[in-house]
Structure formats: structure tokens, C-alpha cells
């Protein structure tokens, strides 16, 4: 159940322009419309992609939301968050 809602939120933040704008304006308010607990909200706000994957979120969504919404949007930072030193990524945004 937890994964389902998290994936819905991350898909919205990866694809949907309206959701992206609302998240940028007020992330807590945007997340408040979903049935998320405090840990869910923390994972999303802190871009904790490692933990999100551990609870079952599809890595394509953690990558997509990172590219679209994270502060630096760099895949090297994403890899470090996952605990990887890889300099390569499958990002479609370069």
C-alpha cells in the first residue's frame, strides 16, 4: 500500500507539470493531499532515493523525480545518495 501511493506521488512529480509547480510552491501542502505518513513525507522531501527504493518504489521513478525536482538534479549526486560511486547513469537528461 505504501509503495502504491509513493509511486503515484513520484510519478506525478516526474511527469505532471501541475504537480511539479504545486510541489515547488509548497511541498508540504502538495504532499498533504496524499495519505502519507511522516516517514513517507521525509523520504520525499529529503530525496532519500535509497530508502524509497528499499520500500519498493520503482527505480525509474526515483530517478525521474530526482531529475525533475531535486535541488541539484545531478546524477552523480543521485548515485552517491544510493551509495554508488558510479559516474554513469541512464538519465535521459544528460
Amino acid at each position: 500500500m505504501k509503495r502504491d501511493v509513493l509511486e503515484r506521488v513520484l510519478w506525478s512529480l516526474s511527469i505532471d507539470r501541475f504537480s511539479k509547480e504545486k510541489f515547488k510552491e509548497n511541498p508540504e501542502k502538495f504532499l498533504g493531499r496524499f495519505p502519507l505518513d511522516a516517514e513517507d513525507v521525509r523520504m520525499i522531501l529529503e530525496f532519500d532515493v535509497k530508502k524509497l527504493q528499499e520500500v519498493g518504489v520503482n527505480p525509474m521513478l526515483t530517478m525521474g523525480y530526482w531529475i525533475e525536482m531535486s535541488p541539484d538534479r545531478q546524477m552523480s549526486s543521485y548515485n552517491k545518495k544510493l551509495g554508488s560511486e558510479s559516474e554513469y547513469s541512464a538519465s535521459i537528461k544528460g
Partner: protein
Amino acid sequence: MAQIVGGFLVPHDPVMFVAGDAAPADKAEKVWGAFETCAQRLADSGATTVIIVGNDHYMLFGTTCLPKYCIATGHLEGPLDQLPGLKRGQIENNEALATAIAEHGAENGFDWSVARSFTTDHSFSIPHQLIVRRAEELSGRSIAAIPVYLASAVDPYITTERSRELGAQMNAAIEAFAGDDKVAVIGSGGISHWVGTKESGKVNEAFDRRVIDSCCSLDMDGLASLSNEEILEEGGNGAMEIRNFLCAMAAVNPVSTDLVEYQPVPEWVTGLGFIELKVA
């Protein structure tokens, strides 16, 4: 009646477009050259329609509906995920054949999801631009394209066996289609690659060779017998795309194959294989 004239198994690696210079020049040249070889062979085949079997990357289909298999029967444009050198545009579909495949399926135990107006992603649009559009340039004739999307990247995955069965149903539908279309089928997918995970950049050449050997020897049983766990462990989440290969192989029902190229390219995060499926 429509005729199947062949097919190809090729990658759809977006990193080639966004970080083209990252790969060693000799490898890059071979990969781009392999696409050109496939385009020339498609042009020579006389194909008038190409079916491209790809998969969503959790962009097109959201959490509200995740089809196991989907065919676009109407208006077509793409890709959603534009890349440098790969811009969105309108695409000519073969609506009559696509509809016939879906209707044939409904009568034979395959309940296709259909997209009446569809936007592709890069899994369709990379081979479409580099092979189909290029074959149009080389041949001087128009080639329509039909997208088939399998659940190969987002679970619940279509099973390998169902992918193969679906390809066989496509084969039967094409051969029963009352048109003079000459049809080729492209299976679009990388071999080993890890997308968005901490292993990203790893390429397992041994696994890639195993998949290529199965494809080239037309060992669909061997390919279909790979478990999800085995694929995920040895080839990564991206390698689940070998379902697209299985479907295309069954759709073409080839008598022989030709390995056009294989390059393991960690810089492009993928084992990249190119195989021609020959019907004569």
C-alpha cells in the same frame, strides 16, 4: 495477404543521445553503424510497415493503469521524452493492421489494451528514427510504424512466455490480414543494464552473450526459461526488456539470424546487441 519480411532486435539507449561523447569513439562508431546497417537492410527488405515492440519506462502509463500489453491503433506522435537529436513529431501509423491485430487477438484469447491516440517514448522512437525513418530516406518510400508496448520495465511484468505467445498471435494476425503490406518487426531493448539503481553503469557481458546466443540460435525456449530473479540479478532491471525480443522473435518466426553487432558500453550503461531476424 500481408507478408512478414523480417525483423531486428536492437537497443533503445537514450544515453547515446545525451552523452554521446562518453563512450570510446570506436565503440560509438560501431553502435551508430549498426543502426545504419539495420536501416539499410530494412530498406532492402521492401517493408511497408514496421511493428516496434518496446516498453514504457513509467512515463506513459502511470499508477492508475499499467497494461500488460498495449497496441496503438490510431493517431501517433512522440516521443514524450525528447532527447537532443530526437524531437517529438507526428508518426504515420498503419491503423488498419494495428486494429486487425487487436481484433484477431480478441478472438483468440489476447485481450489487447488499445491506445486510440498515443504518445511514444524513446523505446519506440529511437529505433523508429534511426532505422525506420532512415530506411525511408534510403528507399524513397513511406514506411508506417505500429507501437506495441509490453510491461517489461514496470511490474507486474508480462511473463516471458506470454510475450512469446503474444508474438505468435501477432504473426497469425499479420498473415491473416487482407492487405498487401510487407511487415517487419523490431524488438527494442537493451540487454544488461541497470536503470536508476546503484549498479547503474555495470554491464554483464557474460549474460549479454548468453542472451545473444539464445536469440541467434532461435532458442526461444531458453530465453523464455530465464526467471525474473535470474534476469534481475544477472542483467539488471533493464534486461527485463528481453521480453520485447521474445515477442518480436515469435512475431517474425525467423528461419535464421545474423548478429550485426554487440558492444558492451558501460559509459552508455548498457550491453548493446543488434540481431537481424531473417525469414528466408
